[in-house]
């Protein structure tokens, strides 16, 4: 997995139609999330990602901060 910064997030979304995934619990997502992101909590990622994400598009995962 590649670590990226804010500018690269914006570029991937704008140029490569990246999928934004917040991996925190649903309650955290409800309180605040990046516009356009979907919520797949970390413990559910392996199970839900193949169903809910498109393989040919880049994926960007994030949480609160440097955790």
């Amino acid at each position: 997995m590649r670590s990226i910064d804010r500018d690269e997030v914006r570029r991937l979304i704008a140029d490569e139609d990246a999928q934004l995934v917040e991996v925190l619990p649903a309650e955290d997502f409800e309180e605040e999330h990046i516009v356009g992101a979907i919520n797949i909590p970390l413990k559910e990622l392996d199970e839900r990602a193949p169903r809910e994400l498109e393989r040919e598009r880049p994926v960007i995962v994030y949480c609160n901060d440097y955790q």
Partner: protein
Amino acid sequence: MGFLRVNDYVAGKKDWGSYGLPHEGTKVPERLAEDVAHKDVPTCVLDERLADVQERVRAAHWDACIVVNEGRVVLGRLDRKALGSDADVSVEEAMTPGPSTVRPSIGTEDLLKRMRERKLSSYVVTTPDGRLVGHILRDELE
């Protein structure tokens, strides 16, 4: 995960929000500093002559000017008193260095409360790394 191109935005949503980028949710204030800041506040640099800046600011119908460097990092502010002075000095000599700043993601209600408590009539809005976003007037929040 089985996907080829997976990226980790390490700094996370706190970083995103603190730069005034679009975020939403039950705890995100309805109006943010980013939404109301005047992005067209006049700017100047340290080695300009005050007189030259005064003319430009007056022509733009402003009474404040933010001093920035080439990277748009805020260094100071020229307030009404400085802009009304007839001293033949540089911007660096006339400015108030290191003005108080807020981040774009602060809610306007919290910001107004802070302005009242600190008896401030305006605030400079910057990103976490100090780059100018805009200028907010307390009168417009009251």
